[in-house]
């Protein structure tokens, strides 16, 4: 089928699908975002059965399938479990210009990792095991970017 263009002029339709959505954030994450937006605090929630603390919080523990209504305030500090320095540019996706750093941060007092930006440090100085703290955005509107990024603890 590869050679049909020898006989026929090819037509290509450019397209774009643009559909608005209004996703409800739900009870658990709404509570989390309000705590972050209004008080600048990061909370996690704990499984009543295994004691695992999730941040971001979850409705149910994935291991025990239990409701998690036990909320704990976290100190906002943690350790870099893994990271990457992004060098490619996707202007419609990336809120930052490359090079910038994503990390998975194991927050103190929590048992799960949080994916976020690591900044306030040269990208090539970021290391696994580095101690970091959350920097809250000055203007907060109740979403994941209310945490501006994590930076090394001096």
């Amino acid at each position, binding site marked *: *089928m*590869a050679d*049909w*263009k020898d006989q026929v002029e*090819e037509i290509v339709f450019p*397209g774009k*699908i643009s559909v608005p*959505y209004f*996703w409800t*954030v*739900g009870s658990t*994450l709404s509570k989390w975002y309000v705590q972050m937006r209004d008080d600048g605090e990061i909370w996690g929630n704990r499984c009543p059965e295994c004691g695992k603390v*999730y941040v*971001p919080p*979850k409705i149910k523990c*994935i291991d025990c399938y239990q409701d998690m209504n036990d909320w704990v305030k976290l100190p906002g500090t943690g350790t870099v*479990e*893994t*990271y*990457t*320095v*992004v*060098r*490619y540019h*996707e202007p*419609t*996706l*990336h*809120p*930052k210009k490359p090079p910038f750093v*994503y*990390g*998975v941060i194991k927050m103190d007092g929590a048992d*799960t*990792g*949080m*994916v*976020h*930006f690591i900044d306030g440090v040269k990208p090539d100085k970021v290391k*696994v095991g580095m101690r970091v703290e959350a920097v809250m955005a000055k203007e907060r509107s109740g*979403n*994941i*970017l209310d945490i501006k990024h994590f930076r090394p603890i001096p």
Partner: protein
Amino acid sequence: MERVAVIGVGQTKYEQGKRDTFHELVFDVAGKALADAGMTIKDVDNIVSISSDFWDGRTISSMAIQDAAGAFGKDITTVEGDGTFGVLYGMMRILSGSFGVCLVVAHHKGTESNMNGITNTCFDPLLERRLGLDALSSAALQARRYMAVSGAMPRQFALVSVKNHGNAKNNPFAMLPMDITVEDVMNSPMLADPLKKLDCSPVTDGAAALILAAEREAKKLVTNKKRVWLLGVGHCTDAYRLGDRDLADTRALKKAAKKAYSMAGVDPWDIDMAEVYDAFSYMEPLWLEGLGFCDDGKGVEYLERGTFDMDGKLPVNPSGGRLSANPVQVAGLAEVIECVLQLRGTAGKRQVKGAEKALAQGINGMCGQSHCVWVLGK
């Protein structure tokens, strides 16, 4: 339990910028698979199609290719995920007793859209999607975590690219046959540390199809020479959020592999060749550990020793792997087809001599959230 056989296969050449529509691709490979099985569409009683709405840019993308898949007047269902899961669905439909012969067909054209944009929409819009994560940057997080846990180094991951692009030279269907060195991989542009361009699979277009038949039908329809049996399958999923898993822990794959081996009645080292999902170089040793071919953290050592080379103890990705052609969703089906060709002894220059048992492993979701493992045999 009744056995299920693969009795026909068909695939396009994998390449960029295919000038065929989805319908044309599907019609092409469905026709090839039917011809390979020596049958017509009238002999097929149901169809499983595999596609992604976001990639195709249309809702219920499967509906649009139904006539091309020969589904008019028949039962058709769809898997939105890797082709290995489509085979699973096809087999289960046959084992249910409702159907006898199933056409499984997958299509994908990565070059008509934007890989990073589409894989970004895999992330939770309530959380990580806003951070701009995609398949590449999340894979980089997994690669670094794997390095931290195992001590593996980027130069060792590069060996996977060298091996698989080299294997692709013997596969006329592969897109990127290349003679490259570790230095070439290390010097290719850094995209997201530690992943460089040559650690990543290419955006690819293509389609593939296979025909499954119940044992009673398989015996009726084809010669012994072409028939290959699905001996075992296992599938298992891990947590959705990256932070809810340890990205270097292959617990879901281990469970899937154990189920597949147990159903097939084999041990890992009974396998003669394997196709594993190397969307990124580091994935090959990581998944080989999860599949039980070596201890955790030892994948790159085995790789360095040549265990997974064409002349090694277990040739891995003789097709050239996903690093040499990665039509997403189609890719796992292409793996199963490669296993079928190897077991038939018709894999040409890449034939693994005397292959009796073959393994294919596909993934769904970011960083291998879920896995489907197949054991096939003569």
